[in-house]
């Protein structure tokens, strides 16, 4: 019994203390994975905040953005041009979704909108593969996937770039939400649809803006994941990892998506490396879901979820 306790509670920490440089490497790996989860989760949060729609297609939007980018690069477009065109495609997609999917379904129950995003999911998946092909593609954006060593710690250049990009993007989004007129309107819509309408905030514009922003976030996520592990169908499955992040951070919180992603990224890497051998590995695969489950029991609104304001 005491052996088991020692193995679970003491030995892993001794290992950590014994090789600090390795620990830092594991942590950095975790932070990188976490930021990637956060980026995907952010797309969910934005749409959920402004329209209360849980967008099942967010994962596929990441895939679609990455496919579009790769497709354009393959046809010889310079990186900047390809990026600009991809942004244009995602904004166009937002317009189309508002016009074809959301507008006809306004005032329908939430579940109907959710079902519509499932349809959107399949459409985008099929359309993306039809337009750009279904084989695995390499995405090369000119950032080499090589490492350099600082004080005995290996740092991957690509991961570093991704982390910085994610941080910048999140800061910009937070500023946009907190300080601009449109951002304020977005938060107002998230709070009370009808009241927002009553003071003249046009829902259509808001939806297009929010889906466009989610599209741009999807591009960044697709870019980073694609550069790391190639552009392929499994990219859309990272959406599944975003779910526990959302539950942890709270569905309507931008900071929650970031912190939740980091906790899950770092947690699963640490668990895998230091506790994995005890249970035969693969902690990485279930850690996030177990953590999410525990959170649902204790704090269902998540770490930063909006507390339901109740007046007595």
């Amino acid at each position, binding site marked *: 019994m005491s052996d088991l306790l020692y193995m679970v509670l003491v030995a892993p920490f001794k290992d950590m203390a014994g090789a600090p440089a390795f620990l830092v490497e594991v942590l950095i790996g975790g932070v990188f994975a976490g930021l990637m989860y956060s980026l995907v989760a952010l797309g969910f949060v934005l749409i959920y905040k402004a329209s209360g729609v849980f967008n099942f297609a967010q994962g596929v939007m990441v895939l679609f953005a990455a496919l579009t980018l790769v497709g354009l690069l393959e046809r010889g477009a310079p990186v900047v041009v390809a990026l600009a065109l991809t942004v244009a495609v995602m904004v166009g997609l937002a317009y189309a979704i508002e016009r074809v999917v959301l507008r006809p379904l306004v005032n329908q129950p939430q579940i109907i909108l959710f079902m519509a995003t499932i349809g959107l999911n399949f459409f985008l998946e099929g359309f993306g593969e039809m337009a750009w092909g279904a084989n695995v593609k390499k995405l090369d954006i000119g950032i080499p996937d090589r490492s350099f060593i600082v004080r005995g710690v290996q740092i991957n250049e690509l991961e570093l770039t991704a982390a910085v990009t994610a941080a910048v993007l999140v800061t910009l989004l937070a500023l946009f939400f907190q300080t601009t007129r449109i951002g304020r309107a977005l938060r*107002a819509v998230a709070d*009370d649809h009808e009241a927002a*309408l*009553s*003071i003249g905030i046009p829902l259509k514009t808001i939806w297009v803006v929010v889906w466009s922003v989610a599209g741009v976030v999807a591009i960044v996520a697709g870019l980073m994941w694609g550069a790391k592990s190639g552009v392929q169908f499994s990219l859309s499955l990272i959406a599944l990892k975003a779910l526990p992040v959302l539950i942890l951070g709270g569905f309507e919180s931008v900071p929650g998506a970031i912190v939740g992603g980091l906790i899950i990224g770092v947690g699963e890497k640490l668990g895998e490396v230091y506790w994995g051998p005890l249970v035969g590995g693969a902690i990485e695969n279930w850690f996030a879901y177990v953590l999410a489950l525990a959170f649902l029991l204790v704090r269902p609104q998540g770490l930063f979820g909006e507390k339901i*304001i109740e007046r007595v």
Partner: protein
Amino acid sequence: MASAAPRPLLSVSNIEVIYDHVILVLKGVSLQVPEGGIVTLLGANGAGKSTTLKAISGLLRTERGEVTKGTIEFQGRAIHRQNPSEVVKHGIVQVMEGRHVFEHLTVEENLLTGAYTRRNGHSTKKDLEVVYHYFPRLVERRGFKAGYISGGEQQMVAIGRALMARPKMMLLDEPSMGLAPMLVKEIFDIVGRLHREEGVAVLLAEQNATMALQVAQHGYVMENGRIVLDGDAKTISENEDIKEFYLGLTGVGQRKSYRDVKHYRRRKRWLS
């Protein structure tokens, strides 16, 4: 304009509203609000007051309702097919029943959202000051989340937010709901001042007939989706039926005991 019948600011003619394609809620409602006037719409729960206001502001469609007959004109322009955002741009803002503040936004942010339809930033600041001038209580609350302030303050936020759109006319839906009598009086006083000093026309839907008839110049009484009585506020408040059924007074002018009400129910004269 001293002509005998100046063109009304708002003119609702004979509208019919159907919810969900089947439920007939308004059955030929007509009413008018003159330039810079206060008009009240009285009636019990479910009489159709809110529906009438929502038909004007265009919020009806978000509840699957539709104006199927009749017209609504504002300054001579038909507005019954326009969406809420266009209606606000024309100068009509509705303050919804139950306040509906944005709970997770601060008081000041709530007010600022009201200026969404008007893009020029520098006059927004001035409007903010106007709102704080009428609702000095909100100044100390400006940084608070609106979900945590009192009901009366929330009502002030809701009215102030509407004011930020610089409306020519406000549609107030039950501003007295759930408020203490003293606060009700305060809110009504402010509405009266807004009307006098800013020249905002008001269409006020209320169950609190006593209060409403004090500030209003003209009144309409609704029942079952119809207008059953209209006249200037003074005439209405002296009407026997109104006294009996809305003001809770007997013919002699005394308060009526609830015990009597149970035993005796006079028929309203306007219902056959």
